[in-house]
């Protein structure tokens, strides 16, 4: 028995985060993420309106340090103001989820226009290149499943996680069979349960130090945004402190197989279409168009965008012809996968200020 509802992905994202165990949404207004804020106010156990984006991230960091799982939603202008605090949360190793609904830039750009133009920023969001797990939704099913996954990853890896979307993927309304959505697993917090003394940055085998909330009655907790040793004491550049900094990247990268999400439908084909976010829907139709013409084409929809899973390089390098469609000028994910030098046979379909159509993608594959 299906249950068809006419809903947007913002609703699915917040419901999934709620069921997964998000404790609080800290919000401030910004288009196109306002629906997320609204739904959170109706669903999450706690909602705080913050006065600005920097306060938002700082309050989230405070809640996270005290053992809560905080969530917010923003767009580029807000993200830009959050960046320093996201770095702080990365360094302190504070779990949280930031939903980023991209819009048309540069600067304030067009608040009600879609785009996928923030990938290069996200790829280097931390000074020094310490990646943050970044999951990108491209369907209602993704909005449901990846939102919950984002919260799980944040807890498991003790890190901020970016859930990437765009104006169309958070605001377009579509019919969804909600009875077909799989159950959400609630996060069981990975807190320190040892017998002390507690070292806030002493990792377990997977490179992740379990969190013990500040304010607890058992052991002292030191958190810091500055280069530090395992005790959380400031160090200039001692081997221990630098090893700790290196671990921040390693814990995210070495565990990426546990959160590598993608769709890849056919191994044997003459060409590969790559698309994510809103353009993934156009790519699905393009693949169907081309197959109806008798062409052998494969479709790859990456969902874990950062860190780039090694598996992706294996996939894209199997094909002579790779067409990457994305709503930005440069071909940002193309550049991330293949570098500025590119590779023969790799092409982009790019546009700003409008949706890329299935016909455009199909034409590039045919050419």
């Amino acid at each position, binding site marked *: 028995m299906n249950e*068809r*509802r*006419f809903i947007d992905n913002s*609703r699915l994202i*917040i*419901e999934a985060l709620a069921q997964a165990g998000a404790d609080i949404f800290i919000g401030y207004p910004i*288009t196109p993420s306002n629906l997320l804020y609204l739904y959170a106010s*109706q*669903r*999450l*156990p*706690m909602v*705080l309106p913050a*006065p600005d984006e*920097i*306060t938002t991230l*700082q*309050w*989230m*960091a*405070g*809640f996270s*340090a*005290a*053992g809560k799982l905080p969530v917010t939603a923003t767009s580029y202008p807000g993200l830009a103001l959050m960046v320093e*605090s996201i770095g*702080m949360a990365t360094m*302190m190793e504070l779990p949280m989820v930031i939903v980023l609904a991209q819009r048309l830039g540069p600067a304030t750009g067009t*608040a*009600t226009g879609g785009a996928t133009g923030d990938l290069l920023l996200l790829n280097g969001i931390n000074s020094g290149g310490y990646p943050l797990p970044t999951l990108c939704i491209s369907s209602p099913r993704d909005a449901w499943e990846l939102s919950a996954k984002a919260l799980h990853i944040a807890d498991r890896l003790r890190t901020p996680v970016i859930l990437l979307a765009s104006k*169309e993927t958070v*605001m*377009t*309304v*579509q*019919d969804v069979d*909600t009875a077909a959505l799989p159950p959400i697993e609630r996060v069981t917090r990975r807190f320190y349960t040892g017998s002390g003394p507690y070292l806030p940055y002493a990792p377990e085998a997977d490179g992740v130090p379990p969190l013990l909330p*500040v*304010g*607890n*009655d*058992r052991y*002292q*907790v*030191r*958190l*810091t*945004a*500055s280069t530090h040793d395992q005790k959380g*004491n*400031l160090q200039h550049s001692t081997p221990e402190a630098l090893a700790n900094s290196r671990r921040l990247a390693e814990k995210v990268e070495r565990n990426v197989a546990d959160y590598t999400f993608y769709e890849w439908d056919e191994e044997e084909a003459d060409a590969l279409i790559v698309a994510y976010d809103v353009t993934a*829907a*156009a790519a*699905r*139709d393009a693949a169907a168009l081309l197959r109806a013409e008798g062409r052998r084409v494969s479709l790859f929809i990456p969902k874990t965008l950062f860190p780039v899973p090694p598996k992706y390089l294996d996939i894209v390098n199997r094909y002579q012809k790779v067409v990457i469609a994305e709503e930005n000028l440069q071909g940002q994910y193309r550049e991330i996968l293949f570098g500025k030098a590119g590779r023969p046979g790799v092409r982009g379909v790019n546009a700003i200020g*409008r*949706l890329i*159509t*299935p*016909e455009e993608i199909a034409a590039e594959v045919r050419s």
Partner: protein
Amino acid sequence: MSGRFLSTENLPFCKGCGHNIVSQNLEKALSAVPGLSPLDVIVVTDIGCIGIIDKQFTTHTVHGLHGRSVALAAGIAMALGNPKKKVIALLGDGGATIGLQHLMEAAQRNIPLTVIVHNNMLYGMTGGQPSGLTPRGFKTPIMPEGKPQNGYDLCKVLHAAGAPAVRRLLALGDFSAELTAAVQVEGFSFVEAVELCPSYGVKFNPNRKIDDIAREAGIEIGWWETPVPRTPFRAERHERCGSLLEREPSIAAQYSSPLTGRYTVVLAGSAGEGVQSAAEYLAQAAISCGLHATKKGSYPVTVGVGFSMAEIIISREPINFTGISEPDAVLVTSSDGLGKVRGIVEKMSKGALYLDASLDAPATKVPLVKHDFRGPLGGRSAVYVAITLMLNRTGVMPSEAFFDILQQKSLGKKLDFGKLRQVAE
């Protein structure tokens, strides 16, 4: 002086720095709070000289960004929501200048934490630049002629913002009792300790004493208290609604449609005239006919002014791409809407244009249906007339399916369905 809260008397500050005195007073102040243990205290430090003290505290410590310690501390305090736990933010006048907004917010909300601003009238760690609190005439390395304007009075600003307990003192001697009192305030408490930086303040302002500087600059030493205590802020947990999905009713397939493929509609009108809602209702009606549907909105950032446009796809098959390259029907109810879709209409090679009778028809190759959408039921119902007419003309689905959806909305109580049927004939 080492103690329960500070592990050593060898603090990491310059000889003669007021930070030493404030820290020793804080140790004594915390020791005087009955039953308080180090693990009941969370010290949050800012960037600057005061931010290098964490290691000496036996409490929980959190060291964040420049100017943000008060916001970070506020987050911790709100999350803990436990009067037994004392959250204390330590920052300088530079951090207070950068993060003034955070101080205002904590004061206004009466967030339960204590903020101690070590006001040595300049940014010490970076070479002695003036801050927002530097008084007029006070000399610093980058402004050796002295600051031309007075610093702002942080105590009065925060008291005006709602801080229930504010005090300013000179960082001289034993003022631990005042800090004990501040820590024991149930809500937000603020202490400004006025100091003189031995490295830059003394060097550039020789022979001036801290109390003279304060007096000459009009820096008032004293207490500002709210006579009636305000309730401290608590981030309450709420039992919100159940599932967000269930808030949106599921739509049963109770009508049928002859549509075998896809039908695409562009609805364009004026903001504030229900275009987006009507588009959703049309899509919901399609779902009630067993079809798939999507709706995309387009409008300027203004609310209630300018155009409002929606794209609706109705399809027998599931929908991936939600864009419409060439619509089957364009419904225009106002000149705002026409302005937005004129380009689409001019390129149309199939389908039909449904246009309000008041509008001049644009150049188009497709059949034009002109009809008085706005007159019979008013401008706010024009979209319903237009959609009903389109459904009646095309037969893409029964208009009763659309009416059925409308009747489930609050709008349905106001809409004259008899007249709607009549005018959309």
